[in-house]
């Protein structure tokens, strides 16, 4: 789901542009570090491949068909940093040349699909890859689509695009269906690729830090869920404090939120320090 320009409110698109720009720079640096010269054309051609593979229709059940979205497939084949970079390149081209997604909304679309979507795919592949490979790839495809779609829906709702309850639940149902389709298609495509040459698909990394991957995936899904809940019931905090928060302007609220995050980060950091000191003592 590509968000066009004109849908997101200024604070939403501006924040996501500011968040996505350095994140893409970081991803590009990582991809550059991991990539040998001969992989540079490969990344580009894989982007073109995803574009083309989206044209192939998959029959899924009677009368319905879907197509590959490709985020999870790229993650499994190229690794997370390169997959993120390729998806970002695709989104830039779609926004400018194919009128699919807006230019100011590019930060939001990159965040939803190239960053959060790839993160969900990578973490699920890493978490469950050792236990059941096909299951992990299915989860990677399904969760990446679900994450991107729910984030986009949340951003639209936070921006004040009106939506009745019926439409909201209908779109959630649609997301679940397309997420399951993406999972099935990704598993099928990876199997077909492996039949041709098993070396093309990297195996899941050794599960040295499964807890970290599990916690990170849980955190990501919590953020997605939180975004949805916050967008449906934005007055929750007001109800808690019993006073209107809306009287303050959005920079003030943003600063308040950032200060809160900084405080939580400081607490976690201190906790970690104490724990590691106790362990080394």
């Amino acid at each position, binding site marked *: 789901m590509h968000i066009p320009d004109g849908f997101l409110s200024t604070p939403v698109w501006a924040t996501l542009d500011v968040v996505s720009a350095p994140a893409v720079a970081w991803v590009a640096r990582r991809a550059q570090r991991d990539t040998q010269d001969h992989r540079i054309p490969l990344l580009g051609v894989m*982007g073109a491949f995803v574009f083309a593979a989206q*044209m192939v229709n998959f029959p899924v059940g009677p009368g319905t068909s879907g197509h590959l979205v490709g985020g999870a497939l790229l993650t499994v084949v190229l690794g997370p940093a390169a997959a993120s970079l390729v998806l970002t390149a695709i989104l830039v081209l779609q926004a400018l040349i194919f009128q699919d997604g807006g230019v100011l909304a590019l930060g939001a679309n990159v965040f939803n699909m190239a960053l959060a979507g790839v993160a969900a795919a990578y973490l699920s592949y890493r978490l469950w890859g050792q236990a059941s490979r096909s299951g992990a790839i299915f989860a990677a495809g399904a969760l990446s689509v679900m994450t991107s779609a729910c984030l986009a829906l949340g951003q639209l709702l936070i921006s004040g695009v009106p939506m009745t309850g019926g*439409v909201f639940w209908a779109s959630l149902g649609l997301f679940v269906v397309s997420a399951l389709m993406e999972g099935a298609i990704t598993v099928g495509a990876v199997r077909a690729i492996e039949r*041709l040459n098993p070396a093309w698909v990297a195996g899941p990394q050794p599960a040295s830090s499964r807890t970290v991957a599990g916690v990170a995936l849980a955190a990501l899904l919590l953020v997605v869920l939180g975004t949805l809940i916050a967008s449906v019931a934005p007055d929750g905090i007001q109800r808690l404090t019993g006073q209107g928060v809306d009287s303050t302007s959005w920079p003030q609220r943003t600063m308040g939120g950032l200060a809160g995050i900084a405080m939580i980060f400081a607490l976690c950091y201190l906790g970690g320090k104490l724990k590691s000191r106790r362990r080394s003592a």
Partner: protein
Amino acid sequence: MHHLVIDRWSRGSSSLHQRDPRAKLAALLVFLIVLSTTRPAAQWAFAAYAIMLIIAVHSARLPILGLAGRAALVLPFSATFALLTWWSGDTLRALALAEKSFLSGMAALLLVATTPLTGWTAALESWRAPRMLILVIQFVYRYLFVIAEQAQRMRWAAVCRGSHKTGGFRLATGLVGVLFARSWQRADGIYHAMLARGFRGRFVPAAPAPFRAADALFFSACLAGCLAVRILL
């Protein structure tokens, strides 16, 4: 499908085509930001933005209907939400939603229809966009139609062999797998061709054209026009 019509448009020679890509990209961002922050009630402002775009398209000697048709690709999505907004009783907002998304698409299209891909990617690179991202964008664009055509041929071949009767999920995954394999081999071939032509890990761009007074004037005019409409109307 061979050559995107935008490619042909972008090789024009009007004064708008000759402006520096950096000036055009900056003007696009100003236009989009001003458009995005316009209140729904200011309907005259939207008309003024549309007139500004029409003047620009005319001075670039591009077909206005062709551009509008391509920009209209966004309308199915925005019309759905505009209808929802209209039902919830906010007519002005519904109108603004459709207008904003259409005008934004039109403005972005105007940039790529007057600037070749190498132009706007060079502008992005001069603004410190990661080089790796620029490289990938250029490669994706270069091979997009090559691989899409291959996919199309494979689909026809499958249909000719009776895929519509027997084909199913397995056939589609097989198609994607073979397409993947061919893309991978093509990438190998491309790399070796690049090495044979002296590639040493980076592309040497042509010396960038200097930023002229006319470019600065063009950007200032766009900035002044957008701000005037935004504040006055």
